[in-house]
């Protein structure tokens, strides 16, 4: 039998009828499926469980030019104990900052179990020479980042230079060392679901531990159909290789209701194995307060004023 031409990291051109094929995505149908799943009615215990999970999976994020050690310190306190009035509310998964603020975050989060994630690779555009991007990653890791959120080179991807995108991810992964790598596809610049699927498979094949929708710097970031396309790609890779890659939607998830819709999709597409911060993250900044408000409503039966929840 002919030997399949080897592509990097276990992806082979299928010579038999098997997955993964790159395949394509039907836009109408995928949006319809996402809309149907979004109608699940999650109530009572199931809702509380989901809301607490959403907090545990949260990457609390601040990525502004005006970020200071003081701002980051406040965010870290929120990350460790989101609701000072309720010790049962768990900590978030990680705090996500720019490299310059890793130190401040590290200091504040020491011993808490909350991880420090840093964006790198010339975030958010990724339009810089590779050695600059790699240096960016190395520095972030050296400063103590547990997780690196990189951006792919969309310019290269959209001009069909997939190998360049692939090689960059491979090298960034090497530069990460022990740090986990999340690969940001910046879906709103990719234009089609077909491209989202291609970029997802590319990022996983190149060694990404997570695939992530967006930088959060553009409108139209994470959407439910986009996540569904990415989850299905993750599922295909798992089926084919047994490898579990994580998912991180980011940007635009602000309400509890919306967060639960994302979790339902994970639950019904990948199954309960993925409902853990090890394999699922939500990149958000304002979401946590809305969840806290909902949790308190579930506990007390009444909505409380926004003034009872800290703005950090």
């Amino acid at each position, binding site marked *: 039998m002919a030997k399949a031409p080897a592509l990097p990291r276990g992806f082979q051109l299928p010579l038999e*009828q098997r997955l993964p094929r790159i395949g394509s995505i*039907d836009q109408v*149908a995928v949006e319809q499926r996402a809309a149907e799943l979004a109608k699940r009615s*999650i109530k009572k215990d199931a809702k509380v469980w989901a809301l607490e999970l959403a907090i545990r999976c949260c990457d609390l994020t601040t990525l502004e030019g005006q970020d200071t050690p003081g701002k980051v310190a406040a965010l870290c306190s929120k990350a460790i104990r989101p609701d000072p009035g309720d010790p049962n509310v768990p900590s978030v998964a990680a705090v996500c900052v720019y490299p310059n603020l890793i130190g401040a975050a590290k200091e504040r989060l020491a011993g808490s179990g909350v991880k420090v994630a840093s964006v790198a690779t010339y975030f958010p555009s990724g339009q810089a020479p590779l050695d600059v991007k790699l240096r960016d990653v190395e520095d972030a890791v050296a400063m103590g980042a547990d997780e690196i959120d990189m951006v792919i080179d969309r310019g290269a991807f959209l001009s069909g230079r997939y190998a360049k995108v692939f090689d960059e991810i491979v090298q960034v992964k090497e530069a990460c060392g022990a740090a986990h790598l999340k690969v940001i596809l910046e879906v709103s610049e990719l234009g089609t679901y077909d491209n989202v699927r291609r970029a997802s498979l590319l990022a996983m094949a190149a060694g990404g531990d997570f695939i992530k929708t967006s930088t959060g710097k553009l409108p139209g970031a994470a959407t439910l159909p986009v996540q569904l396309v990415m989850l299905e790609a993750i599922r295909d890779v798992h089926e084919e290789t047994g490898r579990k890659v994580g998912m991180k939607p980011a940007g635009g998830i602000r309400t509890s209701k919306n967060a639960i819709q994302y979790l339902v999709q994970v639950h019904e597409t*990948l199954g309960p194995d993925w*409902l853990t911060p090890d394999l699922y993250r939500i990149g958000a900044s304002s979401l946590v307060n809305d969840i806290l408000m909902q949790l308190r409503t579930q506990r007390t039966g009444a909505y409380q004023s926004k003034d009872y929840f800290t703005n950090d």
Partner: protein
Amino acid sequence: MTEVEKHRDRSPVPAGWTYAPAPESTDIVNLRDRYGLFIGGEWVPAKEHFTTVSPRDEAPLAEVGQATASDVEQAVAAAREAFRSWSRISPSERAKYLFRIARILAERAREFAVLESLNGGKPIKESRDVDLPLASAHFFYYAGWADKLEYAFPNRKPKPIGVAGQIIPWNFPLLMLAWKIAPALAGGNTVVLKPAETTPLTALLFADVLRQAELPPGVVNIVTGDGTTGAALVDSDVDKIAFTGSTEVGKAIQRRVAGTGKKLTLELGGKAANILFDDAALDQAVEGIINGIYFNQGHVCCAGSRLFVQESIYEPAIEKLKRRMGTLRVGDPLDKNTDVGAINSREQLNRIEELVQAGKDEGADIYQPPCRLPEKGYWFAPTVFTNVAQSYRIAQEEIFGPVLSVLTFRTPEEAVEKANNTPYGLSAGVWTEKGSRILWMAQQLRAGVVWANTFNRFDPTSPFGGYKESGFGREGGMHGLEPYLAFDGSETFGG
């Protein structure tokens, strides 16, 4: 619980996260203990009654009248009487009534949706998101045609035909009512409608809508009962029979009306082919296949009950299909998270069980995902048969349940040949990324509807109907008006 084959099961059965029950409240529905017949705008008591139950738990819901031949005669006479004035009022006045009915249906959608699920067993998400919006949309659509018939059929001088006897099935009770009544009234006809024996309640509640809309008495009459009532309606002094239901009954009706001069349209069974090519968007295709056969428990005449998979993609496709079946939520039709509800009746459940047994005996491989079925009521787990031959009963006969038969093909020509090799011809589905192939397939397939990269999509503007033993005549769209009109030069009835 049905026998479940223990396959290597990779379905993500919920472990850490079990959705809490989310039942739709039934408080909004007020049922009477006993219903008579709706004739001439009044409730006429019936001599005998039968009990209608909820298939989800077999609990009795109400007593419903069993209309006799003389009741039917009375209803037809009322319709005949009403026809004199209804056919002569200005078409724009008729349109107003139809618009009113459409609006009231939309306003009372939740009430009707709950009752539809209660009496018929379909998931509330379907009656809420499909049946009710479409039923209302049909009235809106045909309301628009009422004063534009001359434009729909230029130079043909359309006229109403008279009294239409309409017999509708139990799978989409209110929606089929809308499909039948809306074009009939728009054309200036009057109606005697017989709802299905197992699902009469939304039609009876619809009588309330007619009164609310102040439709003149006798324009729509509703007689409930079993097959004998239907037979009496077929034999009565109507000008047209419109029937949706099984091919067997359709043939019997056609024999009875032969030579009587009654117009006839039949919308009958199906055994639709869903054809999956290896270049299709696979995850979305699987979703469409699931929707094609498990929508409304497979109680759909155009259900995609035969899946033809191109052999080059067979294994991954079947694996994905089985895994997806594992995430279907089977249970209480009134729970908002239910995907597959209850089988409509004991009788239908028996038929499904018989055919599934036949499939096993013939040697096909059965797969049912692990799922816990309620103890009371009529239930059947989503089922797929693989390794099915074209000659098996499960590949030939309409099962009308959540049972999919999977066959394979190698080339487009073979797919067309196998898909067309059935006495039915109601619908078909084609799944491919290749536009030219879709167009070619649509030309070759002998089916009234061909869906491409989707399935079970309906719209009032689109005609629907069958080839061969799936019936004749079209419902929906401009075509749906034609069976309710007589044209210049042709004989007119009734008037």
